[in-house]
């Protein structure tokens, strides 16, 4: 199955990726080859099969913890790695003109 350049651009837009024209062409070819391989799964009849939605059996999962207030990272530390901030807020480019 060949992915068109148009589809590649649409996916890149959804994924918030900017691709060069060369990357668009390379990915169109490579992703098509991978999807062709994946197509093999269509040989299987899975209509009566439940999807594996969790890797652990129900009894192996921890119970939900109590919804109680606990200590966590101070805002100053939690935001320290941000490329731009004001106080303990993340700073981003203007969204609405």
């Amino acid at each position: 199955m060949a992915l068109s350049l148009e589809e590649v651009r649409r996916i890149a837009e959804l994924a918030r990726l900017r691709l060069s024209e060369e990357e668009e062409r390379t990915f169109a070819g490579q992703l098509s080859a991978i999807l062709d391989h994946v197509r093999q799964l269509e040989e299987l009849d899975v209509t009566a099969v439940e999807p594996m939605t969790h890797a652990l059996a129900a009894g192996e999962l921890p119970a939900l913890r109590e919804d109680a207030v606990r200590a966590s990272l101070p805002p100053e530390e939690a935001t320290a790695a941000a490329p731009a901030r004001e106080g303990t807020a993340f700073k981003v480019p203007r969204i609405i003109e």
Partner: protein
Amino acid sequence: MSTPAKELCRLGLREAGAGVAAKAISSSELVEASLARIQATDGKLGAFLAVSADRARAAAKAADARAARGERRSELDGVPVAVKDIFVTKGVPTTAGSRILEGYLPPYDATVVERLEAAGAVIVGKLNMDEFAMGSSNENSAYRPCHNPWDLSRTPGGSSGGSAASVAAGQVHASLGTDTGGSIREPAAFCGVVGVKPTYGRVSRYGVVAFASSLDQVGPLAREVGDAALVLRTIAGHDPRDMTSSTRPVDDYLGPLEEGARGLRVGVPREWLSGGLDAGVEAAIRAALDTYRRLGATLVDVSLPHSKYGIGAYYLIAPAEASSNLARYDGVRFGLRAEGAKGLKEMYAESRERGLGAEPKRRIMLGTYALSSGYYDAYYLRAQKVRTLIRRDFDEAFRSCDVIAGPVTPSVAFRLGERTGDPLQMYLADIFTITCNLAALPGLSVPCGLEAGSGLPVGLQLVGRPFDEATLFRAARALERELGPLPAPPEP
């Protein structure tokens, strides 16, 4: 009394720890020997992305002070180890092999880092890896290539390439890696060390940079089976900060370690030995199976009929989850931000363009496509159903055997650059390891000899029932004891 530094570096983890406790060697000597070895060899090897010498020396001093008082935190107290750069370390740069996290200083430690340090282990640095753990050769590291200590022109495997290379070359006594589709077992096999992918949920992933959340698991690499067992015992167990970590108690892995293979039923999946394997690898695997028989185990023919669909299911599920996990790298909360972008959307796209390499972009694209409107049922949902079929195959096989044995990889370590042009070819290297992740089972790679001709290590894969790591260690140890240790790789 002073042991030459090189000999100190070849000591096993438990041996080194016992030496510190007996005050025959000091933690400082071990750490200095490790740092000197990294200094001497890593220019050629490329196993480390960062070395934290000051922090390691301080920790070694503290360990020596404990030993002087007769205190011992654990069997690995005072011993130098290293961790893949995917584990966050408070105040120590953590990149996950990506430019988008260059210079990132995490505000907390991963649970496994905390547990290693609480046990007294000295972390000397952060290890090289494929960007965001995506790769099978470590060639997707955004920083530097990593080489196989057995042959510097070959890959150490990936994505935990640095974790395997550093242990094989004697830079550290053990390391931690992560395994999403084979990323601990494949490099362990290529570098001739022991590598363990525990059951999904056995080890906390709090503070592990996420790739594919339904598959990722943390595990140890070491030169001896018992050393790997000790590290897993140290890091395993429930962590309230990770909702996917199991509350099951952790088994005693070291107790039954020497019980041998007598009476063990070893399942051999016929699909794993029917073509597609290099002759030298197949010969080594068959010889290992014969060894088990000689040791009193019974070989059982089993079938995993859906094995061949593993790659297809994996390359939908893992990219789909990655596309979601990697959405957080947008230039807002941490990591690289493209300056001067006009609006928010442009800032996201430009930051990601500059910060992410080809492989993460490729997988984000694939995953976004598979999850996009109109394709979800055909791709992601179908793959999750195939995953159920793969798990059922294993459940059925384990009715007649205790452990499953087969190859880790179709070939020994391949050459750097050999597969970088063809992603699908690279993905196919994971064919034997991937089903174990999809089925959430524990898997282990143990050296089973050197390939005739190339002289490169071959790994035997053992897969166990859920949470039955103890049987994997016992079976791997029986083989290790019989075959004896591999020779050390040549000096880099």
